[in-house]
């Protein structure tokens, strides 16, 4: 056996894991060095999260060995892995919704006085950790369930920091963060690297990997298909390694801007709600993809929910095809005459019924179309479902398996597919590509453009500026619940997006965010 000095900090060899008929991992290897950031890449369902869960003690491998400091280890549960210094930020997060931020940050090892938890000390620790992770704006006593997803991710990062890990795993831990937040997190991660931690970083944002990783490992179909030093391969090479086939453009070409004639498919006049939406007016024509930009939490989510009939006592008007309509629930909004669809923010709680089958989830929004007199037409249903699975290349072991067993990205595809099945005319998207691999993202962009060409009007919120730049014909940048600026055509640049997101003049923006340029824009 190697002496401890020459052994890598952590190594996995020949790890395999099956779920029923699905081989999530086959003979996978991974070596983690102290003082390195190791990027892990792979398309959706490649087995990345499964590998991380094995490292973190959540899942037990069917075969394979793991060594820590050269000594064989096996973790029966997350507590054991934590004890060995391995801390994981899971893709699905592991925050307890009813507990406060501080409680969550110190959840497994709170400071104690006389055997009881010392609330003050805990709060201090939480405040410090939040500050380090870039979440100063989060109140340590706020319950997690009141925080938006992006703040939760920051809390999760803060929680990992206080555990003083030797190995820190981040499984798409920044997927809901905007560029500004990501910057802060990155500086923390780089500092941790200097302190000698080993970091595993999973992301579908190629630019993030490029900036952070010292070396990368690519997984495909549960196998390790290559480990290399960062910078030795181009993004296109990496993506082709991931998806195993050739890969070209990310974004489809945009059509030439058209003259604003005729009634828009969607028109919003002076929409206000509860001090969170302030007098918003916008239009989206058939064939147009209208982006929503701005920092996270500036009212984008609320705007989409308001359009979809979820919010109460909104003021202002919503017109579809020039006709005023009064939407009081999603059911109203999805009716044929309106034809709206909303891809919600959080797939786990808002998009999917995780224990139900792929089939049930896919047809849930279209049951009205697929049924007569309340009876579901099974044949039509099967046909529509098979079509969608093909269209979005959803990786699943049949349509009867629970959606919860699919990988994160494939779950996200189910959410999109479920709404596309309704043949919507107005599509509202809340960060729909979060957690989706580069190859699939490109397919989704194509698909959106195709839907637009076929006459849909699309309202597209994304935390990723490159998507807004690459996909949208116009972008409305929201600030504090109101439309700050409207950018169209060539005006849509990173610089303009950032400056209007911060509500400052374009000239004042430095180059601080330029390293994020091209994030997601592989090739």
């Amino acid at each position, binding site marked *: 056996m190697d002496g401890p000095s020459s052994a890598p900090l952590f190594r996995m060899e020949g790890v395999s894991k099956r779920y029923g008929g699905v081989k999530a991992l086959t003979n996978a290897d991974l070596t983690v060095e102290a003082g390195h950031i190791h990027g892990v890449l792979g398309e959706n369902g490649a087995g990345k999260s499964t590998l991380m869960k094995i490292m973190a003690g959540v899942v037990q491998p069917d075969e394979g060995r793991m060594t820590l400091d050269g000594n064989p280890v096996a973790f029966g549960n997350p507590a054991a892995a934590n004890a060995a210094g391995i801390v994981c930020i899971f893709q699905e997060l592991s925050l307890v919704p009813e507990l406060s931020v501080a409680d969550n940050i110190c959840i497994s090892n709170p400071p104690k006085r006389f055997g009881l938890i010392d609330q003050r000390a805990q709060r201090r620790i939480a405040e410090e950790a939040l500050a380090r992770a870039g979440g100063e704006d989060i109140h340590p006593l706020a319950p997690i369930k009141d925080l938006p997803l992006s703040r939760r991710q920051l809390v999760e990062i803060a929680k990992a920091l206080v555990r003083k890990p030797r190995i820190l795993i981040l499984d798409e831990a920044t997927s809901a963060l905007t560029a500004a937040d990501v910057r802060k997190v990155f500086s923390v991660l780089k500092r941790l690297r200097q302190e000698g931690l080993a970091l595993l970083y999973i992301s579908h944002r190629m630019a993030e990997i490029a900036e952070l990783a010292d070396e990368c490992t690519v997984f495909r179909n549960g196998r390790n298909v290559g480990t290399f030093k960062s910078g030795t391969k181009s993004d296109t090479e990496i993506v082709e390694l991931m998806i195993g086939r050739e890969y070209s453009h990310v974004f489809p070409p945009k059509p030439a801007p058209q003259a604003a004639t005729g009634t828009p498919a969607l028109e919003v006049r002076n929409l206000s709600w509860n001090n969170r939406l302030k007098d918003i007016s916008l239009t989206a024509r058939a064939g147009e993809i209208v982006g929503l930009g701005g920092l996270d939490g500036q009212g984008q989510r609320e705007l989409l929910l308001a359009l979809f009939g979820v919010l109460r006592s909104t003021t202002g008007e919503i017109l579809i095809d020039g006709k005023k309509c009064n939407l009081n629930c999603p059911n109203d909004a999805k009716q044929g005459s309106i034809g709206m669809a909303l891809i919600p923010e959080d797939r786990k*709680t808002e998009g999917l019924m995780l224990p139900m089958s792929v089939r049930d989830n896919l047809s849930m929004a279209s049951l009205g179309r697929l049924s007569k007199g309340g009876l579901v037409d099974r044949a039509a249903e099967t046909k529509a479902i098979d079509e969608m699975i093909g269209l979005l290349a959803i990786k699943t072991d049949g349509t009867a398996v629970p959606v919860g067993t699919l990988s994160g990205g494939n779950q996200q595809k189910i959410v999109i597919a479920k709404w596309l099945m309704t043949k919507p005319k107005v599509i509202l998207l809340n960060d729909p590509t979060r957690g989706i691999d580069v190859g699939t993202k490109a397919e989704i962009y194509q698909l959106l453009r195709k839907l637009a060409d076929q006459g849909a009007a699309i309202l597209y919120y994304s935390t990723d500026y490159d998507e807004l730049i690459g996909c949208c014909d116009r972008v409305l940048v929201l600030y504090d619940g109101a439309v700050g600026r409207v950018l169209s055509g060539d005006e849509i640049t990173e610089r303009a997006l950032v400056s209007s997101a911060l509500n400052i003049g374009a000239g004042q923006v430095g180059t601080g965010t330029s390293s994020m340029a091209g994030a997601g824009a592989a090739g």
Partner: protein
Amino acid sequence: MTNPLATLPVLRRLDPAVLTAFGCIVLLLLFGAMRNPNFLSPDYLLLQLQVGSFLAMVATGMMLVILLGQIDLSVPWIITVGGMMSTAAVGWGPWGATFAIPIGVLCGLVFGLVNGIGVAYLRVPSMIFTLGINAVAQGFMVLRTGGFAPQDMATESMHDLATGRLILGIPNPVWVWIAVGAVTVFLLRRTVFGRAIYAIGNRETAAYLSGIRTQRVVLAVFGISGALAAFAGALLAGYSTKAYQGMGDPYLLPSIAAVVLGGTSILGGRGTYLGTVAGVILITLLQSILSVEQIPEAYRQLIFGAVIVAMLLLYGRGAKVAA
């Protein structure tokens, strides 16, 4: 994890839990037969099915409610409402006598809908709102009995429905059960409404955002549960030829136990009707066998508890990993 809606061959669709539950039924019968061969006589078995069908009506409604992730604790007095109002209708002349059962069911439906309003629109936890409705229903029935001395005798045709054997020598309530069961299975598997029930039970937010009118579904399901409980009450009134105070008391816990013994998750979203059928038969048989065995009540209760735990350990165990 078996999903009732999955497209799988019929056999694979059978939940192993449900199969085991039926296995337990056979075991129970064999055990009974060892002590007294009459436990296997057609007379006895048909009697169990007949008596079980009253519980089955209640358990059917309870199952739908449990699939939503809710619970209905108002069944005891809604049963009584059903029994007392249907017999009371008989006193309103020939018109009332003809529509006695529908009138009883209607009253149950009304109480059920109030449950639904409380749970779906006022968002009060069902476990407590239905408890309150139970108390209110009791209040009404005490008031009626004390204040108006309603007619409480069942009609001949109600008696026939509950005890007669019109077709193939099989007791009529068993046919009723088969009919209600068939409708329920159809409802759950084939209709949009059924899908909505499972969806809401799994995650109401996601169901709502999918454009399901979740509140109406919840309202309707509680309505159905109330109506079925009242129908059970009307059948019971026919069986006993009369309605009386407290006639629903012995049905609450057994109906919950039957549904859960049948493999339905109390958290909602998962369960099959066949399982509930097995659960009802199991509970009815167990109660009956314990009833005729000559052992003191204390030991009966002990055995009842132990057998249920043993059966659940056999097949009702949850997944190792909680969702």
